[in-house]
C-alpha cells in the first residue's frame, strides 16, 4: 500500500473531477452529472460495505444533500471526494442507527458457501472474487478496518482525507487499513485451499 497505490486511480480523475465541481458550483448541471459519474461508483462501494444492499437508497439521500450543499464546498477534486464521502458516511450511519432494531437480512452464509473453495490455484481464486465476495470479506473486518480499507481502496482517499472522513488521527486510520488489508490477504490466501476461512462476518469487532 503506501502512498502510491491506493489512490492512483482516483488521482487520474481528480483533475477532471475538480474542474467539473468548479463548473457545477457555478450552476452547470451537466458538470454536476459528470462529477456524479466520477464519484458515485466509489462512494457506492464504500457505502455498500457499510449498509449492504441498502447502499443505493443511502447514496440517493446522500446525493440530495451533496446537491443541496455543493455551494458550501471549498476544495479541489480530491477534496470533493472526501467531502462527499463524509456526507455519504453520515447518511449510512444514520441508516444503520435506524436499522439497529431490525438487523438486515444476511446472505452471508450463502455467499460463503459459494466461495471458490475448491480452487487450487491463486489465479482462479482471484478471478472468482466477485463483488459480493469482496464485500463479505470486507464486511468481516472490524468496522474501523473495513472503513479504512474501503475509503482508501474504493473511494481513493489518501491517508489524511480518510482520517478526516472518519474523524480519527491519520496514524490510526493508516494502521487500521494496514491491518484490514493484511487480514483480507490472509483470508484470501487461506480460502483458495481450504474452507476454513474465518467467518467472523459482521460489521464490528
Amino acid at each position: 500500500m503506501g502512498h502510491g497505490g491506493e489512490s492512483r486511480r482516483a488521482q487520474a480523475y481528480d483533475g477532471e473531477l475538480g474542474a467539473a465541481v468548479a463548473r457545477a458550483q457555478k450552476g452547470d448541471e451537466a458538470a454536476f452529472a459528470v462529477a456524479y459519474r466520477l464519484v458515485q461508483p466509489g462512494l457506492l462501494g464504500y457505502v455498500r460495505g457499510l449498509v449492504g444492499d441498502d447502499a443505493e437508497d443511502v447514496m440517493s439521500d446522500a446525493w440530495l444533500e451533496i446537491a443541496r450543499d455543493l455551494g458550501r464546498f471549498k476544495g479541489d477534486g480530491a477534496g470533493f471526494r472526501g467531502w462527499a464521502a463524509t456526507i455519504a458516511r453520515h447518511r449510512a450511519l444514520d441508516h444503520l442507527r435506524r436499522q439497529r432494531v431490525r438487523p438486515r437480512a444476511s446472505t452471508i452464509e450463502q455467499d460463503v458457501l459459494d466461495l471458490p473453495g475448491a480452487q487450487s490455484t491463486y489465479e482462479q481464486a482471484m478471478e472468482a472474487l466477485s463483488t459480493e465476495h469482496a464485500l463479505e470479506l470486507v464486511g468481516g473486518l472490524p468496522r474501523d478496518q473495513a472503513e479504512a480499507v474501503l475509503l482508501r481502496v474504493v473511494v481513493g482517499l489518501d491517508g489524511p482525507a480518510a482520517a478526516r472522513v472518519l474523524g480519527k488521527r491519520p496514524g490510526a486510520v493508516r494502521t487500521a487499513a494496514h491491518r484490514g488489508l493484511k487480514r483480507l490477504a490472509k483470508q484470501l490466501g487461506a480460502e483458495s485451499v481450504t474452507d476454513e476461512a474465518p467467518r467472523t462476518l459482521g460489521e464490528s469487532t
Partner: protein
Amino acid sequence: MGERQSDGGQAGRRRVHPEGTVPAQDRPAPVPGGRPAVGTADLETLLAAALLRGGVDAGAEQRAVAAFVAARESGAHGARTRRRDDWRARRRRLGGRSLKATLSALVAGLTLSGVAVAGIGVAGSSTDGPAEDPKSTHVPPGTTPPATPKSAAPDHGSGGRDADRPATAGDTEAHCRAYEKVEGRGKALDATAWKRLTEAAGGASHVDAYCAGRAEQDGERPGSTGAPGRSTAVPDRSGSGSSGNANDAASGNAGDAPDSGTGGEPAGGSGNADGAGNAGSAGSAGNPADGAGNGAGGSAGRPAEPGGRNP
C-alpha cells in the same frame, strides 16, 4: 509494506517493506506449502475492481441532477461554507501544524519565563537586602518626590510599591553612576530603576544635575568613580547624612522641575512612557532591576565606603 503469508506453522515469518515500495517478489507466488500468498497491492487492485464493478444507475443520476437544479434555483448554493465544507487540504494541514507549534511554544514560553522571573526575584532580593536595610531606616516613608502622572504607566504593577518604598542613597548613587554609562543606548533606561531615578530628579533632563548634586556630597569620598569633574564641585554639603541629602536633592530638584520651563516635565513624562513599555515585566521585575542596579553600584563604589562614610 507487502507481506508474504505462509501457512500457520510459519506465521512468524514475514517480510515488511518500507512504505511505497512493493518489490516484485512481493507479488503472489506459490509458496512451498502449496498455498498462494496475496500481495496487498494486488489485493487493493482486486478489491477495487470487485467493488467498483457496475455502472452508474441512470435513474439515480437523474434524481441527483434534479436535486442539484432545484437547489440552484432555490438559491441554496449561496450558503456559507462551514468548517466541514472546507477541504482545501494544504491550508488545513498547515493550520493544524501551526496550531500545535503555537501551543507548544506558548507552553514553553510560559514555563521558561516563569522560571526566569522567579530566578530574578531571588537574585534581586538577595542583593537588595543588605545594601538597603541600614539606610532605609533613616528615611520616613512617603518622602520620595512626587511621581509624574500615573497615567503615563497605567499597567505598572509596582507603581504603588515604588512610591511607598523610600529611595535610598545607595540606590541613587549607583543609579547615577550607571546612568552615565548607559545613557543613550539600549533599553536600560527604560527599567524601573531608571524610572525611579528620573522621578527623583524630576525629569529626564534633570538627571544630570541631580546626579551631580549627589556626586557633590560624595565628592570627599576617595576612590569615587562616579561623575569626574563634579565630585569636588560643592564639597560643603558632604557633611550631612546621606539620607537627608537624598531627600534634599530629590525634593529640591522635584520642586525645580516645573519652574525650569525647558520641557523638563514633558521629558520626564516621555521617560516614564518609555518605562511603561517595560510594564509587562515590571510587576515583578521592578525589584530585580533595582537589585541589579545596586549590584552594579556596589561593585563600583562600595569598596571606598568603609573609610569615607558613616560619620
